[in-house]
Structures are given as C-alpha cells and as structure tokens.
C-alpha cells in the first residue's frame, strides 16, 4: 500500500505537480505514515531522479524548478506534522538570501532559493532592495550559516562588499559564510571582496553552498 503511495509521491515531483504532491502528503498524514518516511521514501526519490536526469542532460531547468515547487508543497503539509511529533527534518544548512540595496532584480536569486530548498537547505528569502543591516540582522535572528547575495548592476554590487565588511567587523565570519551572484559578478570581484563562494548559475550555487557548509 505505502509502496504504491511512495511511487505516486515520487511521480508527482517528477511531473512537477504541486497540487498532487500536496494531496499525496495529506493522504500520508491520514494514513499515519511517518512524515520523514513519506519525504525520504517518496518525494525525495522524485527529486533525486529529476536531478539525475538533469545531470545527464535529459531534463531541463523548468522541470527542476517545478520539481522543487512540488517538493515545497509536500513539505508544507508534512513539516507541521513532524513538529507535532517533536521532530524535524535534518537540513543541510540555513541560508538567508537577498538582492542587495538599490537593486530590484531577483529572478536569479529566486531561482537559487528554489534550487537550494529542493536540495535540502532551509531558505529564508528576504526579497529585493535589502540593506546590509537587514540581511545581517535576519541571519543572526535565524542563526543562518550562509548568506547569499545577488546584484545585477555594477553600481549595486559594491553593496555585497559592505555586507561582508560589516560581518567581518562584527566578527561573524567564518561562522556565517557568504556566497554572491549576479550577471556582473566575476571571480576577480569575489576575490576582491573576499566572499566565500560564488556561482554563475543556480545549479552551481547548490554545489557551492554544500561545500561551504561542509556537506559536499
């Protein structure tokens, strides 16, 4: 019975269908299946499959994003049940994401958030136009081990340095690692501002984040 259900769960992720994945999660709750088992034996199998297909070049980014969304929908149902049991999912790390102050471009950052949460990170996305104190304040509040910052403009990417300098001043690194991204971000820039990591795309960002939290 549950074997069949696990298969359907995996398939809902592969199909990127958030309605069905949430419905299957509710079904698991009704059937008193342990939430962690539903996640591990069902939904994660789908995520892994899509990830493998993507790696082989047989799946594309929209499928990856939709799998991530479907996963999120299932987790949203199962997580409260897990908390009721006094348990929690083991996460790879907690990431605060933001587009820096003065910049409203967020597609890339949002994509990174989707990829990170689909890969087992807890993601707190502050949105766009975020000043250094907000970003750092949130990271401290939620005890994040990673900050991810995006900038699309050469005039706003300097804000990434401000956040890093502020973190250093407060002695918050290396406890909090920093990764940066955005179209104008180059390796030279990353070295210059002493960020811990960067990636040119969302897929690469997951790898970098895993390395930074020592879970590569």
């Amino acid at each position: 019975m549950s074997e069949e259900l696990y298969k359907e769960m995996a398939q809902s992720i592969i199909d990127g269908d958030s309605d069905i994945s949430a419905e299957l999660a509710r079904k698991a709750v009704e059937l008193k299946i342990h939430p962690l088992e539903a996640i591990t034996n069902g939904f994660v199998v789908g995520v892994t499959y899509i990830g493998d297909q993507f790696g082989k070049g047989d799946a594309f980014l929209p499928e990856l994003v939709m799998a991530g969304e479907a996963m999120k929908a299932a987790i949203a149902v199962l997580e409260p049940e897990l908390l009721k049991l006094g348990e929690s999912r083991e996460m790879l790390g907690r990431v605060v994401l933001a587009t820096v102050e003065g910049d409203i471009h967020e597609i890339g950052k949002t994509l990174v958030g989707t990829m990170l949460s689909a890969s087992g990170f807890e993601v707190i996305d502050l949105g766009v136009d975020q000043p250094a104190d907000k970003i750092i304040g949130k990271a401290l509040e939620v005890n994040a081990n990673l900050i991810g910052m995006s900038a699309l403009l050469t005039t706003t990417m300097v804000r990434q340095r401000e956040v890093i300098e502020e973190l250093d001043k407060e002695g918050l690194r290396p406890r909090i690692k920093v990764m940066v991204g955005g179209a104008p971000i180059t390796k030279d820039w990353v070295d210059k501002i002493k960020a811990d990591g960067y990636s040119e795309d969302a897929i690469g960002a997951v790898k970098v984040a895993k390395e930074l939290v020592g879970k590569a």
Partner: protein
Amino acid sequence: MSSKNIKTISNPKLKLEVLTQDDVRKIHEATLQIIEKVGVRFPSKRALEIWQAAGADVDHEKKIVRVKPHIIEEAIKKAPPAYKLAARDPQQDLQLDGNHVNLGTDGCGVEILDINTGVKRTSCLQDVRDIARVADATEEVAFHWVSLSAQDTPVEARGLHELKAVWENSTKHVQTESVYNVEEAKAAIEMAALLAGGRDKLRERPVLSLMQCTAPPLGHDGGSLDAALLAAEVGIPTGFMTMAACATTGPITLAGDLAVGNAEVIAATALLQIAYPGAPVFYAAAQTASDLRNGSYTGGGPEDFLFGAATNILADFYNIPLSMGAFATGAKEPNWQAGLEGALSSFMASVVMSDMLLGCGFLHGSRIWSFAEMMMDCEIFSIVHKMMEGIVVNDETLAMEAIAAVGPGGHYLGQKHTRKHMRELFMPQFMDRRPYSEWETKKDDARDWALAKARKTLKEHQPDPLDAQLSKEFDRIIKSVEKK
C-alpha cells in the same frame, strides 16, 4: 546617404516579413490586454501620480498600474515618428527616420580582454576612453553606447564619468544606459546642455540619448523611470529596452515573449507621452531565449534572430524608432559562434531597418569587451550594409557590351566595364582568401588582423578634442554629484 565618415544602411533593397499585419494586430491586442488586465509595475511615486491623473487604475501599494487601451493608444500616437540624434560634430548627426540603420557599440560590460596583454580584467575608465577613441575612427560605428562600466570611479557618479570619457574621445552621438537615478540624470542633462549650447539648443540638438532597461516580466525600475521622465522633459531621446527572456522573464513561446516585452515598452513609452507629449522616444529591445540547462541569457541563437527581425515591425506599427540588440553572443572568445551569432542577428535586425543596431564588441553575453571582436563585428556590419544594397538591374549592370566583347571564352579582367565597377565589390579587411601556403607560413587569421587594426587605431587616431573649458565644467558637475 552617410554623414561624415559614418556608414549607415539606407534605401534597402532586401525585404523580410517575419510577422504579418494580422500577427502584429494580435500581438498589439494581447499587449493592450496585458496592460489593462495584468498590469505593469511602476515603482516610482512620480510615475504613479502621472498614471493616476491620466485615469489609470493605480494600486499604490503594489505599484501596479492597469490602463485602458484607449489611454495607451492615444498617448503613443503623440510620439514623434522621426527625429535626429545629434553629435558633437553636426556632420555626424544621425537620422532616426525608418530609412537608416545606425550601428552603435555595445554596453555596459564589466570586463575587457586587455588590448596589449589579451588578459581578461575588470573594466575601468581608461577602457571607456580607449573604446570611444577606436569607435570614433571606424566608419561603421555611428554612435556610442557607453561600452564598459568604469569600475574605478565612485558609483554615485560613474555614469557621468563614463559620459565625459566618451565625449572627450569622440565627436559622435552618445547614448547611455548607465544613468538611472534622479541625481545622475539631472547632472547628465546639465552636461549635455552645456555641450549643446543651452537647454533650448539641447532640444534641437540632443547630443545625448538615454536607454533604460525594463525589469521583466512587466516591471520597471523606479530610478530608471524618474531619470527617463527628466530626460523626456528636456527633449533628450529616451527609450525603454526589454530583454524579456523566454522561460525565465518571459513566456516560453516567442509570441508570448514579444507580447510581454511589448507591454513593458509600450506602457513606459505611453507614460512619457502622457507626461511630455511629443517627447522623442524610441523602442528598445533585446529579447532572447533562456538556456534551458542553466537559465542563462543566451544572447544569440535562432530565437534571438527572429526577435531581431520581428521587433522593428512592432516599432513601425507604433511609428517610433527602434534600437535593436544584435551582435550578442555567448562565445567566450572571438570564434565561430561569435561570428555566426553576430552575422545572423545583425542581418535579421538590419533587413527590417531597425534604426539603431546595438552593438559591436562584446563576448560572453555582453559582459567582456574585445577589441578584435569589435573590429570583426564592424566588418560584419559592412557586409550586411553591402548586401542591403541588393542587386541593381539595368542596362549598365547587365553589361551587354562587355559580354559581347569577351564572347564565349576569354575573361573580363581587361574590360573597361570591369574597371569601372570593380570597387563596387566588397573588399574584406579580415577574411582569409590567401593562398594556402601563405597562410601556412604565418598561421594568422581575422582575430590577429582585427586586433592589430584596433591597436593601430588606438595609437594613431586623435579625435577632435573637446573644448578644455567644457571638460572643466563637466568635472565640476561630476564633483557635485560625488559624495564628499
């Protein structure tokens, strides 16, 4: 006709119809429906107030504006169909009249392959100067986009340092996409007015034009809107560029992507016309398809080429000039991909007579400047220019006398007719047509020759200098914007 040492495409003999009138009508109707029902985000207090006064439905909290079609259509009708981009040297003024394709340099990148070492490094103010100087010398480049970000200058006045650098090193028209807030826009206008000889003169002779990027899907940047409104007020030509990308910032389908981008551009253009009826505006676009594997801006590929040919048909429908993105490439060095993408994108955008063609010089998705790439892009433009002249068929070109004189067998090398017309054939600068053995001894190619030409130009070309007093005034204006 071309102005002083500038080669522009005009009186085209080739035609291409990528969209039918019915297609255009459908895209237009979809656009109006998007603006009316879905809305467009205008995160600027001033813009929202203008929309409110014009009778639009304004959501002040979300900063989303929904506008009835007749308001948009009436506003767009007020835009001038043709005007000129003035240059420091009036002989280099450019016509945006539907009958000229003017090539610009690309902008605003962040790295450069150093002209001497070939090593990739972060861009600086001197690069902006050097590129302006080389572009000033070429006949293909008709106007400048500010090419690279002057990352060694303070951010709050960077756009102004860049403008000064170009004006000091070239007499051609300057367009910037790097002035996108009120302070810098006011200062840039002051600089342009000084150069033109006063505010009234600036309206007659806009030596500066402004390009603002939209924030797709269906959004704008607040600073960009405020800067554009200031520019429109003083008659500085202003355009909004959409780069809606299939699958990420736009629908996956090309028609849907065109509609979303069109809604961004048309809504913002209508805003300028409502605020300042008759202000010179242009449509700007560089739509693309996102790469399905990494989501990146592709800059090239068949979708881009089709967008290049389709957008001028839309701009013509609204009867405003177009600035079209071309020459974009994902290539990391000047190679097969760069040549292919540059050739097809520039051809497709030129064949429909896009008024401005942007732009030569970049690699890696408009991030890395290469002087060799710039020169080779210029040659591609020259080839397109030649092709657009088409084939002239008349008694003279049918060459009946020469044909009779040569008869069967023989050759045409000794004919007066040949001598008379031989310079009409295209003479490439960077194509390898040498004997194999000659190549074998040197093993050089287009990239080497293009780079050598750029180096020679940079060394030898001295543009007409800018009045020293003006430079001083520019410094004063820039200082006033820089933080103390």
